């Protein structure tokens, strides 16, 4: 018994749908899998049965006006869709974007464009190319799209040496491994890769997240690689630069390379001289005095325009632990003498007590006075910086008569104590548990400077531009205060002081630092309870209620009409 025609028609429609589904799945999956095969068979059976068992319908359909008009409409529709898709592709290639944010956070800053130009000029010199590689898996396609808006701008401003590439770490785990990318490490998905002329990777520079400041800084790191080097001086029981302990300096030692500043240690007692590639030397909390020979090396380095950070703790011996007293920078210490003769500053042999500007006890000091030094900025000025066991600094300016050498330098107080502070000189009698008492005969009355920056008065006119920062405490820079890795949250003020110090000494910021997009720090919204109640009344009752009331009125009028 033949199948009814309306059944055959339904089979044909279902068959056509199955064929369409098979085509879509095949195009998407790019393989003839079981589902595609089953749909294909079902489609052929459905359409084939209708064609074979109802040939008269097939003939009528093919010669009917529905096919005539329908085919024309279908072709026209496909053409329109084709044009739309082509237009979209063109629009996508143009990548025309208008940034309406007030801070222009999606528009490249001039400094970013300069960073890109700087990197490309260096790449072009050696026949290198660069690529920003982003690792985004299929779950992060939204984030990838967001990043693309910014990254595309770099590619467009590039002379052709910078390209972009996105890699799915789930599909290419080996590639992710080669880059050191892991979503669990939270290091950010972007990397800047440098290729040589043979197409081999020569450098992989981690960028972090898709932020302009990070991307541009990575480019500058490539540009200035090898230009900056900071030496941590050793040989006199200085604080350990590599130690990860609370009193170690690994927090600063290991993070400097992340911004393109290389670090190393230098035993000044055995070195013939300070290396010529030293951008800055750091003497951090030595316990023993420097010899004349050591100071000669330092003097030679500074005479050639060197930069130096000197951190010195008070010559104080804890009576409980009975540790040998710190003998670094005593009055007759050669380094202290050199600093006085050359720069007009020297460390006093004291321990500052400041009851008016301290926390915990009078020896943990928060600066009461902030001087107009070159390293100070609004942000640092607004942050509290903590110093523990501090010694004061004497400045030649306070004595009035300056030698010609001293007069060539400008000394700016960075931090000073309050008027109530004093420098306790009877250090053998000090017990940190008890309150220190001021002795007018021997102690120095406040305010006392304990952080000073020094540079030439006519620095801009000089080819040689030595700079010194001297601070009467070392603890503020240790992992306990700076490095969150030590288990204690880094103190923002101390971190900022370190950043400003190293930037001013190395002049890194002038060459290789990108200011973050000038986005205004958005303040939290403040609303009183009364205002909030009014807002709720307006938005939840009055506005929807008014619309509903008008609707009811309209409905009422219509019913009456």
């Amino acid at each position: 018994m033949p199948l009814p025609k309306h059944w055959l028609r339904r089979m044909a429609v279902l068959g056509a749908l199955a064929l369409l589904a098979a085509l879509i799945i095949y195009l998407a999956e790019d393989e003839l899998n079981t589902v595609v095969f089953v749909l294909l068979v079902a489609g052929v059976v459905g359409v084939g049965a209708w064609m074979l068992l109802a040939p008269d319908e097939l003939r009528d359909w093919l010669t009917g006006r529905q096919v005539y008009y329908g085919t024309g409409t279908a072709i026209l529709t496909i053409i329109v869709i084709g044009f739309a898709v082509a237009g979209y592709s063109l629009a996508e290639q143009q990548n025309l974007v208008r940034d309406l944010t007030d801070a222009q956070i999606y528009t490249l800053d001039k400094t970013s464009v300069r960073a890109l130009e700087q990197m490309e000029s260096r790449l072009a010199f050696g026949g290198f190319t660069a690529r920003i590689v982003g690792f985004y898996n299929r779950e992060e396609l939204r984030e990838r799209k967001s990043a693309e808006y910014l990254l595309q701008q770099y590619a467009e401003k590039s002379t052709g040496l910078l390209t972009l590439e996105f890699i799915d770490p789930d599909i290419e785990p080996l590639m992710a491994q080669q880059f050191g990318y892991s979503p669990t490490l939270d290091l950010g998905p972007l990397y800047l890769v440098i290729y040589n002329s043979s197409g081999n990777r020569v450098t992989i520079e981690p960028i972090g997240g898709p932020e302009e400041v990070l991307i541009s800084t990575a480019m500058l790191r490539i540009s200035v690689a090898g230009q900056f080097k900071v030496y941590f001086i050793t040989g006199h029981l200085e604080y350990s630069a590599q130690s990860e302990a609370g009193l170690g300096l690994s927090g600063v030692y290991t993070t400097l390379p992340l911004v393109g500043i290389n670090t190393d240690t230098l035993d000044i007692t055995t070195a013939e001289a300070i290396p010529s590639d030293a951008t800055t030397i750091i003497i951090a909390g030595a316990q023993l005095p420097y010899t004349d020979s050591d100071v000669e090396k330092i003097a030679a380095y500074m005479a050639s325009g060197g930069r130096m950070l000197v951190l010195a703790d008070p010559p104080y011996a804890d009576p409980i632990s009975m540790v040998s007293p710190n003998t670094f920078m005593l009055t007759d210490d050669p380094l202290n003498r050199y600093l006085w003769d050359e720069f007009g500053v020297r460390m006093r042999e004291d321990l500052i007590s400041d009851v008016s500007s301290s926390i915990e006890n009078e020896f943990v000091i928060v600066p009461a006075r902030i001087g107009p030094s070159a390293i100070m900025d609004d942000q640092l000025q607004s942050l509290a910086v903590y110093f523990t066991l501090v010694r004061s600094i004497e400045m030649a300016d306070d004595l009035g008569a300056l030698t010609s050498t001293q007069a060539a330098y400008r000394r700016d107080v960075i931090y000073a104590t309050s008027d109530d502070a004093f420098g306790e000189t009877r250090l053998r009698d000090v017990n940190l548990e008890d309150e220190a008492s001021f002795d007018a005969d021997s102690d120095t009355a406040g305010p006392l400077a304990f952080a000073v920056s020094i540079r030439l008065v006519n620095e801009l006119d000089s080819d040689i531009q030595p700079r010194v920062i001297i601070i009467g405490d070392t603890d503020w820079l240790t992992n306990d205060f700076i490095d969150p890795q030590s288990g204690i949250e880094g103190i923002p003020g101390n971190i900022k002081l370190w950043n400003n110090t190293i930037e001013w000494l190395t002049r890194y910021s002038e060459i290789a630092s990108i200011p973050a997009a000038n986005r205004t720090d958005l303040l939290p919204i403040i609303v009183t309870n009364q205002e909030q109640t009014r807002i709720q009344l307006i938005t939840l009752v009055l506005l929807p209620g008014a619309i509903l009331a008008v609707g009811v009125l309209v409905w009422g009028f219509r019913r009456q009409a």
Partner: protein
Amino acid sequence: MSFWTIFKREFRQYFVSPIAYLVAFAVLVLLGLSFNTDLNYRITNSLPPNGAVVLGNFGFLMVFFAPLLTMRLFAEEMREGTLELMMTMPLRDVDLVMGKFLGAWGFYTVLLSLTLVYQGILLFLTNLDPNPAPLQTYFDIGPVIAGYMGLWLYGGATIAIGMLFSALSDNQIVAGFLSMSVLLVLWAGDVAGLVPASVISTDVVLALRVISLQAHYSTSFLEGLIALQDVYFYIAIMMVSLFITTRLVESRRWR
């Protein structure tokens, strides 16, 4: 009879139809809740204001409300037989479709403009000056302007898609359900990557993202960016949908 006549008729129709007021009421209640919840969250957590949040939620609501606004446009005319009557009039099919579309889009624009109340409140509480006085919060109006532009285009695209399904069926419920389903898929295409790879391949995910309505809105307009490709996408969706709708209406002449 021109498309202008159709537009005026359709636009007026919304203001005498209880369903349009109910839609507007529901949208404003839901957005009001969303606005107050977000405001409360920001006050509690000391966060800056963000006028784009309520716009993002409006976009999602349109997945459900656009079909309610459009399902009757052709389906009702077909069911009552007035469409055939209109087709005998000296009126081009494209004028009929464009008139109805612009009428619906016009009503949507009025609905969208009502949400300016939320931005007005935020402006009242904050400041447009990037260097505000102490204790006064700065309000970046850029993402809000871009967000409104995007939402306006996005709404046009959802209405055009809704109209297409209204022209497909003479049953309003079927038309509404079909367009809601398609809009939901197009909305969720943005997050298709969250579906395991064993279910859909990455190529399909990428394709879904390209045609996703949300993907062209959430990462650009709502962030304060107006990208040519996103503007074009919504215009293209409108044009293609309206073209197919016109062909569907036209097909009644030869079916």
